[in-house]
């Protein structure tokens, strides 16, 4: 089923003419001409579309909150700061179907009463940023964006803002701080951005994939969309599959596909036919699944029930050659590097656990270190300021739980030590 990826295999897919061939910019005039903003929000609510950035918050509800706030101007922010290791699905949409994002933003703007949109794109996507800017220019030329869109009286202007390389800026409040020209650090919530966002004004922050889902929902109706996937998590999802599979890549599948189906029926199975060992189903910050969990469905609720999370749908697959301690070290090193430094537990705690992991890999660990790691991780998880801090130690906690033996092997000296840690990261 191709909804989000419907256009990506066309020749010159990013060009507006390619987009227009396949119902492109048909949802926007329908919303503007035939629907009230409330009806647009209702349609998205009926679709039960949940945010694709990782938290899975119902998009219709978010729009509704922002539309009820009377203060203006309001803003739509497209979160294109795709920074979670293992995630590369937004990039496909940005580079191959930018107009789907722009159309979704314009509809969102109409629905909540916003006049301005920002696309906050990660600094490492210079090509994507250029493609978006060109797409905006094309859309403005055809009156799909800008002043008085399609003679409807509705104005909506989109600006592209490039990030400067901080993982934390994918968190919506840190993104807003960064957009305001400040240091990218999370804000206290509540108040939420829907009321107090960019410049302290009502702001909807939606993921690229969420916004790209909007036009099809408006054209075919919320009920149609809700019928796809699972009841709790409708629609299709872009899964970024990486690691030891035969065919890594971005796969669009209905929500609720199992890990087994994703790997073995879509991603070509395991590399060289080797045995599956583990997968991080929701990016670097998700708890790993082991072989016994291959049949867990990859949706928000099922993964939460399994003690992990869907996140942005970045499925990192490891086979039997993988060293879980080393893998955990690499992921932790990332979080140490990317901790914004605002709160104590994430800043100091991750610095500490990374040092313990280093010691273990160097053969200097002892069994007591695992309890210490779990205690510190509990401290970080229960006291961090934002979700990124809380999630940063999921790999450690889950690998100790599921692959304790591999840690012990280092401690007992039965595992070769002295790996080049810098090369590993």
């Amino acid at each position, binding site marked *: 089923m191709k909804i989000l990826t419907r256009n990506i295999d066309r020749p010159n897919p990013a060009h507006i003419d390619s987009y227009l061939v396949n119902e492109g910019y048909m949802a926007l005039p329908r919303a503007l001409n035939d629907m009230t903003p409330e009806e647009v929000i209702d349609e998205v609510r009926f679709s039960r579309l949940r945010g694709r950035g990782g938290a899975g918050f119902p998009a219709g509800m978010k729009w509704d909150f922002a539309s009820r706030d009377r203060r203006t101007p309001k803003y739509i922010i497209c979160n294109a700061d795709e920074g979670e290791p293992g995630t590369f699905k937004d990039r496909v949409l940005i580079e191959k179907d930018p107009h789907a994002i722009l159309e979704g933003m314009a509809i969102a703007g109409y629905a909540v009463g916003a006049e301005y949109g920002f696309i906050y794109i990660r600094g490492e996507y210079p090509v994507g940023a250029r493609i978006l800017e060109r797409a905006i220019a094309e859309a403005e030329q055809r009156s799909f964006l800008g002043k008085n869109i399609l003679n409807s009286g509705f104005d909506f202007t989109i600006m592209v803002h490039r990030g400067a390389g*901080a993982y*934390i800026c994918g968190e919506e409040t840190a993104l807003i701080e960064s957009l305001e020209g400040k*240091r990218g650090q999370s804000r*206290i919530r509540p108040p939420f951005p829907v009321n107090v966002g960019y410049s302290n004004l009502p702001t909807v922050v939606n993921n690229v994939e969420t916004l790209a889902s909007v036009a099809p929902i408006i054209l075919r109706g919320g009920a149609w969309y809700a019928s796809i996937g699972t009841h709790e998590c409708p629609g299709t999802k872009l899964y970024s599959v990486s690691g030891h599979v035969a065919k890594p890549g971005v796969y669009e599948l209905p929500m609720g596909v199992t890990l087994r189906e994703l790997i073995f029926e879509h991603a070509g199975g395991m590399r060289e036919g080797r045995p599956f060992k583990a997968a991080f189903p929701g990016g670097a910050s998700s708890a790993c699944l082991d072989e016994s969990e291959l049949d867990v469905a990859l949706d928000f609720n099922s993964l939460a029930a399994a003690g992990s999370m869907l996140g942005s749908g970045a499925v990192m697959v490891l086979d039997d050659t993988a060293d879980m301690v080393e893998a955990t070290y690499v992921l932790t090193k990332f979080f*140490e*590097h*990317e*901790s*914004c*430094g*605002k*709160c*104590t*537990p*994430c*800043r*100091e*705690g*991750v*610095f*500490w656990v990374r*040092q*313990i992991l*280093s*010691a273990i890999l160097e053969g200097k660990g002892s069994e007591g270190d695992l309890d*210490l790691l779990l205690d*510190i991780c509990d*401290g970080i998880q*229960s*006291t*961090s*300021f934002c979700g990124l801090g809380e999630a940063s130690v999921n790999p450690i906690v889950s690998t100790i739980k599921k692959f304790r033996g591999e840690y012990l092997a280092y401690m007992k000296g039965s595992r070769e030590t002295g790996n080049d840690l810098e090369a590993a990261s």
Partner: protein
Amino acid sequence: MMVRLEIDGKQVMVDGHLKILDAASKLGIHIPTFCDHPRLGELGACRMCLVEVEGMGKLQTACTLAVADGMVVRTDTPRVDHARRMMLEFLLINHPLECTVCDASGECTLQDLAFQHGSAETRFRGKKRVLRDHIISPLIDRNLNRCIQCKRCVRICDEVQGVTALGMSYRGAATVVGPFMDKDLDCEYCSHCIWACPVGAITSRAMKQKVRTWELEKTEAICPYCSCGCTLLYNHRDNIVHRVTHAQGRGINLGSLCSRGYFGQDVINHPDRIRVPMVRDSSGTLRASTWEEALSTVASRLGQVADGDGGKAIGGIASDRLTNEDLFLFQKLLRVVFGSNNIDTPSGIWSRTVMPVLEDRLGVFAATNSMDELNYAEALLIVGCDITVTSPISGLKVKQAIHRGGQVTEINARRTALSRLATRTMVVPVGQELGFVKGLIKVVLDEELYDKEALAGYERFSELEYTVKGRDLTAIARDTDVKVEDIEATAREFAGARKAAVIFGETAALQPGGTDLINALIDLQMLTGKLGQEGCGLYPTIANTNAQGAVDMGVGPDRLPGHLPISSQKDRKALEKRWKAKLPADGGMNALEMIQAASDGRLKAMYLAGINPVDTFPGGRVVAEALTKLDFLVVQELFLTETALLADVVLPAGPTAEKDGTMTNLERRVQRTRKAIEGTGLTMPDWKIFSDVGVTAGVQGMKYVNAAEVLEEIAESVSYYSGISHRILADNGLQWPFSKEDAREVYHEGYLGTRHLLEDGPPEAKRRFVGVEGWETLNPDSKYPMTLIIGDLLFHSGSYTRYSESLNKLVSEATLLMNPQTGIGLDVQDGSTVRTVSAQGEFSVTVTYSDDLAPGVLFMPRHFANAPANSLMVLANEDEAETSVVRVRVVKA
């Protein structure tokens, strides 16, 4: 709205806006925190204040979560305790355990909390983060490794001082605090960052490893450096003031200080302090003497002049940095003992040219409203005043107003430290400010932005209308070099605001014709109904610390204590009765007249206390010559100044830290300052010296045991101070006038005394406009076509600060600031030397280009020996003297 909640099983009713942290403290429950600070907005970053809240799964930060009705909070559970211990363990991973050499040791929050909650063991076996560090400033030390990233320094620099000199760089455990691009610190040295730092990451370099904090005793006193009257803590040991600290929540400053207040107090310990009296011997050299010899010399020599030539031949000038008790006894000594009304202070010119305008127009002799009200100003005009320099803590309040969305318009001949934050800065040439203000009046009239009914009883309304008819806005804008839209916007904001206030300073008021400008400002305030109510103040602002107290105490040639005119026989008789003495009936000479009289031999003797006219008075060399001509000169001082060197007797006095007393700040607040240390050597407080001189002269009624006894007499003699006592001043002082209720310590809305004068607007008899005729104040002088503003610097506010080693590290020389355009016109380069010539004198000085100045306007500080600005100031009668704004010409050297 009040809410009821439960914390650790105790019920409490609190304001619904409070955070859990504050509500808990009302119950005496202390929740530990690092990043929270009473002067800062919420952050929630250190995670030390986590508490359990019933119904909420995760631990919550008590510093960010607002209380709610029915909320149940626990701060004493194992979960909370574990989180706290965890946070301390986290912080101590990277914090170097160098308490042995750390200046913050003893007052370090991390040290205290680790002691209270932490384990003596650490489970950390790794390598501590070690960051490369370097010296960023001569006065403020940064230690990156001690930093716990609470961001208090960064936030206070931004949220309170508005400077943003500090920021955070890098991420995670590598996060560092520092100036932009880690360059040298470029800031206002307000010391807020030092105050805010909960550990030893930011400390005073001047204090580095000098003394352990727990050995210091703290005494609450009033800062002697400006008229804000800030409360500070002298930290002392072994009779030495080692440092100053911030008195959290106390005084009008709530603990805040400025560069002078924090770093400038090292003057107290200066090695050059005079410690013994000195008398000039027959060979003409000053040599050490006993107090007996010095006092009897002063008493007998002044007595001889009084007997021979009469009191009129004796003059006295005292510093307005002295306490009310000092000043009261000074004028009593001059009047009662030596029969002279030749009494003045350096700020006397302000008291006689500026304050009478307020008295005439409004019936008040002080700022109408409180400093605190500036916090909430919605519209503010600041005219001819560099508020950050002149009145730093008033400046902080203005910045709070800006934070709250207040519109601040500066009308000044130069951009100031505030300009970066102000809504607009109108850089108007000196003399053209009047045109701008009349432009505002014109807009208010033309657009009818005033309440017609409220103005029904006002006289001369049509005259006011007539005086702004002559020029249209375009012409006004052209002449004042601003945009029409700026005049319109300023007028609309001012008229439209509920709380609109006016601040004016020396550059506005002490320029020739300055009274016209003040009248126009009062006309504007009357017209728009912005006088008297809460938030609608008129603030005449000068730096002189106790200028208000000096007027109140009668230190002036024309007024007795309590502002009573000397010409009033009734008032004089009443005082004579109280003092059991005869008072001179004729008005005396003011300070400038005294110098002239000394010069031409009419004045035979002078008593100077705490002032250095050779360095600060108009005339420069002329002043020294005049003083040399006197038969007898006594100087009471801290240092052997240029003036003291000319004296026949030098009396060693003590600074504020060495005496008890009271001072009255710019908002009429009488405050107590307390003695921190005993004077060393033979020094004595000024009041005691005046008293001893009087006693030595054999006059009854000059003997006082202590400063409190002097205050008792002030309470009897000065109507405004009636009923005042140390007891009633104990808690942040009180603002005169005050009632019997105040004397019984009945607080109204947290205040003692009168928060603002003119409760119902201008008094009925005063409801009339003046309608200033002209459009500019300063008459052009073709011989001296430029205007030189002589003012204070942020780091130096008078000849006293020149003795501060710390402040001298920041600035110790004067240059002449000049607009580059002006420079090019004169063919003068940046850094070259020019001759600056006024009608009074001239000197050579180095030029520094500055875009902050209006073309044709120059600025230089008043206090440096390399360029004695006072030699340019024009010595003349007060209405023609040029003290703050001097007309000059600049010649290429």
